[in-house]
């Protein structure tokens, strides 16, 4: 859950670079004005970056606290609820429904709703534990802008690459 996620033009630019997207609508306000949306919008998967604004997000080091990634050598710090891969599970599915597209200046908040959980055996990674969560993103006018459904999976062991 995120109380406040301010959508910023600089963040959109950096995000577009990181997915390799050169579309000027993410970079250039003057160009963006000439497009149908009439201004900069965020790429469709940008809302995932709300993690940056999540208090105590478990996949971001917290200053002054132990981190499960390595220094020169592994730290041996265990992460809660880590799966057999030791990385805390993998992302299995992600789905978005767009009620409108995000723009710089939007200020979002999100509400999480638990979804279903299920298990399945897999040859490549042993027992798989799936869990679903629904996240609704509301804007500064309390309008629902994006509904996200995410499925995570904890594997019994690392996924065999054979």
């Amino acid at each position, binding site marked *: 859950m995120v109380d406040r996620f301010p959508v910023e033009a600089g963040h959109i630019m950096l*995000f577009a670079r990181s997915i390799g997207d050169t579309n000027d609508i993410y970079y250039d306000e003057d160009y963006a004005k000439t497009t*149908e949306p009439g201004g900069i919008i965020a790429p*469709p*998967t940008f809302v995932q*970056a709300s993690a940056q604004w999540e208090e105590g997000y478990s996949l971001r080091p917290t200053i002054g606290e132990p981190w499960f990634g390595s220094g020169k050598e592994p730290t041996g710090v265990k992460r809660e609820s880590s799966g057999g891969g030791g990385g805390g599970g993998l992302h299995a599915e992600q789905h978005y429904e*767009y009620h409108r597209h995000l723009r710089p200046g939007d200020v979002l908040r999100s509400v999480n709703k638990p979804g279903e959980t299920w298990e399945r055996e897999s040859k490549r990674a042993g027992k798989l534990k799936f869990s679903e969560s629904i996240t609704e993103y509301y804007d500064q006018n309390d309008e629902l802008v994006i509904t996200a*459904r995410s499925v995570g999976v904890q594997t019994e062991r690392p996924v065999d*690459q054979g």
Partner: protein
Amino acid sequence: MALKASEIKVGDEHVEVVADNLTRTQIVQYAGTSGDYNPLHSDEVFTTKVAGYPSVFAHGMLSMGATGMAVTNYVGDGRLTKYGVRFVNQVWPGDTLTATVAVEEIREEDGQHLVDLTVSTSNQDGREVVRGSATARIDP
């Protein structure tokens, strides 16, 4: 440029290379922008010695984001109403990813023309990494 219902047909495809020899640096960039700093994506020591994988690998969301570029390049800016994927295989440094966006259905709902698309991204070995679907508003 938005798609027009009158100018597309079921089976039409848009194919685009969305990552060419994916670099570890781009994966680090994605960690930095998305806020997902899981060491599996940037920390070779952790990923090989602790997690048991052959090397760091890309965030699923990086492959979804890169694939999304092919979708928006096809349907136009601000036109997507739905986009969802399953992550069917991991993406590794050095992978070259090609996305295929195909027209599955062209329909009308409450007077709005829509296109339903299938989305599939494969690596240089032809192994599918992302599989999903999308829906976009299109012009008549």
